[in-house]
C-alpha cells in the first residue's frame, strides 16, 4: 500500500495531473530564477521509503569547477539542512538573505489515514474502500510532490544567487556522489541549537531596539516585522480554510456513494434519478478537491514560503544590526583607548574590522532586500493570477457539469 516510487521526470509525470501545471521548469514559487546555462539544478526523481525521502539532484553546468557537464547525485533531507546551516554559519554570507531551508517531509498524517483505512476495511463496501484508498493515495502523492518542489526551490535559489552559487559546500553537495555522512543533529547538538536560538532572539530584541541611522534600513525593519507577523497569520488561516474545503469535498464523496447505493436498489424512475445525481456528485467532488488542492498550492504554499523568506530577511537585518552594534562598540572602545592612550592599535584594528564588516553587510543587504521585494511581488503576481485562472476554470467546469446534468434530469421528468 505504500507508494514507493514516484517518477517525476519532466513531462513524464504519471501521477494524477494534480500538479501538471507545475511540472514544467522549476516548480518554483519564485519566478525570476535565471535558468541560465551556466548552472541549472533540479530534482529529477524522488523515492519515498518508510522514514525518508531520497531526492535525485540533477545538475547541468558549463562551469569549469565541475568534472562533468551533467551529473546526478542522491541526497536526503538532512543533507539539505546541512547545506543551509553551512551558509548561515558562514560569516562571509552574513550580508545575504540565505534561502530558507525546506521543511522536513512529513507524511505522518497521511500515513495514519492510510493505516486507519486499512483497519476499517471490513466495515465498508468494496467500492467505498477502493475510492477512499485512491483518495488517500492521491493525497500522499500530492504531499510528496510538494516536498520535492520545496527542496528544489531551495536549490534553485542557491544556484541563482550570484555569490552562493560559487560556494564550495554547494558544489560538493551537487557533485560528490557518495554519502555526505551528514548525520542529523544528536540530542546535545539540538539542545545547543535551542539555546543559541533563545540567545539570538533575546539579542535580536536588543539589536532591533537600536535606531538605525539609515532610513532605508529603519523602514525595512518595521516593515518586515509587521509583514512577517501578518504572513504568519494569513498562512495559518489559509490552511484552516483549505482543510474545511477538503472536508466538504470528502462529504460530497460520501453522499455520492450513498446515492449510488440507493440508486442501485431498484430500477424505478427515482432510482435512475439517484444514479445520475450520484454520478454528478462524483464529478463535482473531484473538481472541489482540485479547487482545494490548487488553493493549497497557489495560496497556502505561497504564504508559507514568504513566511520563511521574510524570516530569512529578518535574520539578515539582525546580522546587520549586530554588526552595527559591534561597530559602535568598537568605536567607543577606540575612543576610550585613545583617551587612555593604551592598546590604541589593537582598538584601531578591531574598529577597522567591525567597520568593514558592517559596511560590507549593509551594502549587500540593501541589494538583497530590494531583490527580495521584487521577487516577492513577482511571485505573488504569478500565483494570484494562476489562482484566479484555476478558480475560474474549476467553477466553469462545475457549472458545465451542473447544467448538463440538470438538462438531462429535467428532460427526463
Amino acid at each position, binding site marked *: 500500500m505504500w507508494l514507493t516510487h514516484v517518477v517525476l521526470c519532466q513531462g513524464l509525470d504519471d501521477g494524477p495531473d494534480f500538479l501538471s501545471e507545475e511540472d514544467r521548469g522549476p516548480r518554483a514559487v519564485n519566478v525570476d530564477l535565471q535558468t541560465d546555462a551556466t548552472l541549472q539544478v533540479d530534482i529529477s526523481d524522488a523515492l519515498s521509503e518508510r522514514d525518508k525521502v531520497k531526492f535525485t539532484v540533477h545538475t547541468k553546468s558549463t562551469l569549469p569547477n565541475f568534472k562533468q557537464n551533467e551529473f546526478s547525485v542522491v541526497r536526503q533531507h538532512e543533507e539539505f539542512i546541512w547545506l543551509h546551516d553551512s551558509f548561515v554559519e558562514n560569516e562571509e554570507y552574513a550580508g545575504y538573505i540565505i534561502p530558507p531551508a525546506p521543511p522536513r517531509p512529513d507524511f505522518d498524517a497521511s500515513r495514519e489515514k492510510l493505516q486507519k483505512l486499512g483497519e476499517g476495511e471490513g466495515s465498508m463496501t468494496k467500492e467505498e474502500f477502493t475510492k477512499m484508498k485512491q483518495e488517500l493515495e492521491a493525497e500522499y502523492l500530492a504531499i510528496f510532490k510538494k516536498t520535492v518542489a520545496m527542496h528544489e526551490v531551495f536549490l534553485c535559489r542557491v544556484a541563482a544567487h550570484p555569490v552562493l552559487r560559487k560556494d564550495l559546500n554547494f558544489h560538493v553537495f551537487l557533485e560528490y556522489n557518495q554519502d555526505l555522512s551528514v548525520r542529523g543533529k544528536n540530542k546535545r547538538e539540538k539542545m545547543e541549537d535551542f539555546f543559541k536560538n533563545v540567545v539570538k532572539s533575546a539579542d535580536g530584541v536588543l539589536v532591533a531596539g537600536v535606531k538605525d541611522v539609515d532610513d532605508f534600513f529603519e523602514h525595512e525593519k518595521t516593515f518586515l516585522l509587521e509583514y512577517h507577523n501578518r504572513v504568519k497569520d494569513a498562512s495559518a488561516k489559509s490552511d484552516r480554510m483549505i482543510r474545511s474545503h477538503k*472536508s466538504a469535498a470528502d462529504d460530497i464523496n460520501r453522499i455520492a456513494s450513498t446515492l449510488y447505493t440507493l440508486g442501485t436498489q431498484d430500477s424505478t424512475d427515482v432510482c435512475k434519478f439517484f444514479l445520475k445525481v450520484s454520478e454528478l456528485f462524483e464529478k463535482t467532488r473531484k473538481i472541489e478537491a482540485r479547487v482545494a488542492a490548487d488553493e493549497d498550492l497557489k495560496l497556502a504554499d505561497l504564504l508559507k514560503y514568504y513566511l520563511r523568506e521574510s524570516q530569512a530577511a529578518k535574520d539578515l537585518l539582525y546580522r546587520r544590526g549586530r554588526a552595527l552594534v559591534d561597530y559602535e562598540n568598537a568605536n567607543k572602545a577606540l575612543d576610550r583607548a585613545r583617551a587612555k592612550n593604551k592598546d590604541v592599535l589593537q582598538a584601531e584594528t578591531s574598529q577597522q574590522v567591525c567597520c568593514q564588516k558592517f559596511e560590507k553587510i549593509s551594502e549587500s543587504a540593501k541589494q538583497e532586500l530590494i531583490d527580495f521585494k521584487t521577487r516577492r511581488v513577482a511571485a505573488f*503576481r504569478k500565483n*494570484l493570477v494562476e489562482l484566479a485562472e484555476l478558480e475560474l476554470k474549476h*467553477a466553469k467546469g462545475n457549472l458545465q457539469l451542473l447544467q448538463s446534468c440538470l438538462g438531462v434530469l429535467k428532460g427526463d421528468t
Partner: protein
Amino acid sequence: MAASSRRNPPPLPGAENQDPLSEMADEDSDEGEDIFVGNSNPVAEAFQPDTANGEEPADLFSEAETSTAANSYITNSKSNGVHSDNENDLFAEVSVELSMENPSTTAKSSGAEFTPSLTLSATQPESMEQLEEEKDEDSFDMEVAVTNPEKIGDGMNAYMAYKVSTRTTLPMFRNRTFSVWRRFSDFLGLYEKLSVKHSLNGCIIPPPPEKSVVGMTKVKVGKDDSSSADFVERRRAALERYLQRVVCHPSLLQDPDVREFLERDELPRAVGTHTLSGAGFLKMINRASDAVSKMTIKISDSDAWFDNKLQEVESEELQLRKLHAVVDSLVNHRKELCGNTAVFAKSMAMLGNSEDNTALSRALSQLAEVEDKMETLHQEQAASDFFILAELLADYIRLLGAVRGCFEQRMKTWQRWQEAQSTLQKKREVEAKLLWANKPDKLQQAKEEITEWEGKVTQYERDFDRISVTVRKEFLRFEKEKSNDFKSQIVKYLESLLQSQQRHVKFWEAFLPEAKAIA
C-alpha cells in the same frame, strides 16, 4: 373512477368484489358517510369526542369515508357487527336516513348521491357535483402556507404562533382565501386526531415535525441569536410541508378536523400533546408495548407483495438515515468553511495593508474582498444544503416510519382475525363438549356465542382484506409522491448549486485583471 359510477347505487351483494370497496374506500365518498347517520348516534358519543358537539356526526362521516365498515372499530358498541356486514344493505338504508339526518354540519359534502329523491338543503346539490368533479382532478386546487412566526407572551409560557393561510377553490370551505393563527401544539393535535381516526385503516398519516424542548426553550427565553432564528425558520418550513402533505392526501383532506384546523378561528387547546402530560406518558407506554408485539408478529402471507415492500421500506430508511448523516456533516463543514473563509479574508486584508508595493497591496485587498464574497456563497450553500436536502431526508425518514406503522396496522388486523378464528374454534369445541354432556341451556348460550364469533371472524377477515387494499393503494400513492418530491427537491438543490457556481465565476473574473495588474 368516472364520476358517473358514483351516481349509481353500488352493485348488489352478489356482485361485490374488491373494486367497489376500494373505490369507496378512497373516494371522499358521500355514500359511506350516510351509513352511520341513522345507525349509530350513540356510537358517535362513544367514539373520540374530542371536538365540539356539532362535529361528531362529521367525525363519523370521515370515518366512513375510508372504510365503509369502519364502525367495526367502534368496538364499544355491543351491537354485533352484523349491520355492517353487508354495505350494500346500508346504502339501501341511506336514502331513507338521509332526510332525517343532515344537521347543519360543516361537512357540506355530506349528503348522498341519491339526492334527487330526497329533501336536502338547497345549497347542497351544486356544491356536491362540483366537489365530485374536483375530486376527479389530480391536481388539488388547494394551497396552504405557514408564515409569519410570531412570539406570543413571555418567559416560559411564551409560544410561537404561525399564520396558516389557505387558498382554495374547493367548495367545502366557506371562503376562497382565509387564514388563521395556530401554534405548534395545534399541529400536533391535528396529527393525533387524524392518527387515531385513520391509522387503523392503513392510511399513511404524514408525521408532524418533532418536538424540541431545547429549541423552544431558547426561543421562549428570548435568546435573540441566529440559532433560534434558524430553529424557528426550520420549524415553520417543516410545519408548512407537513400541512401540504396532509392536504395532498385525498382522504385526509376530507376529514373535518383538517377543515376545522384550516378554517376555525379559535381552536381548543390540544391537551394530549404536552410531552410531560399524562397522555404523553400513556403514549410512550403504548409505543413501547407496541414495539414488543411488533417483533413477534409475522404474517404467513400468501401475498408476498407486502413482505417485499416492507423490506424495501426498511432498507431504504436505513440508506436515507446514512445519507442524512452525511448531509449533516456536509452542512457542518460548509459552515466551518464559511467561518474560516471570513477569518482568512480579514487576515488577507491586513496583509494587504502592510504590503508596501501599491499594486500588490491593492490586489491583496481585492483578494480579501473576493474571499469575503465566497464566504457569503458558502453560507447560502450551507443553508441550501440544509433546508432543501437535509430536511427532505429527515421528512422522509419520518414518513417511512409512518409507512412501516401502516404495515404494522395490517399485521395487527391479521392477528386479530387469527385470534378470532382460534376463539371461534374454542367455542365450537365447547359446544361439542356441551352436546356430549347434554346441557341444553348452556348449549343455547354456546350456540349464540358461536354465531357471534362467526360473525366476528367474517368481519375481521373482511377488515383485513380491506386494510390490505388500502395499505397497498396508500403505498403506491406514497411512492409516487416520494418520487416526485425527491426529484423536484433535488433539482431545486442542483439549481441552487448552479447559481452559486455562476456567482463564483463572476467573482473570480472580476479579480483576475486586478491580479494581472500587479507590477
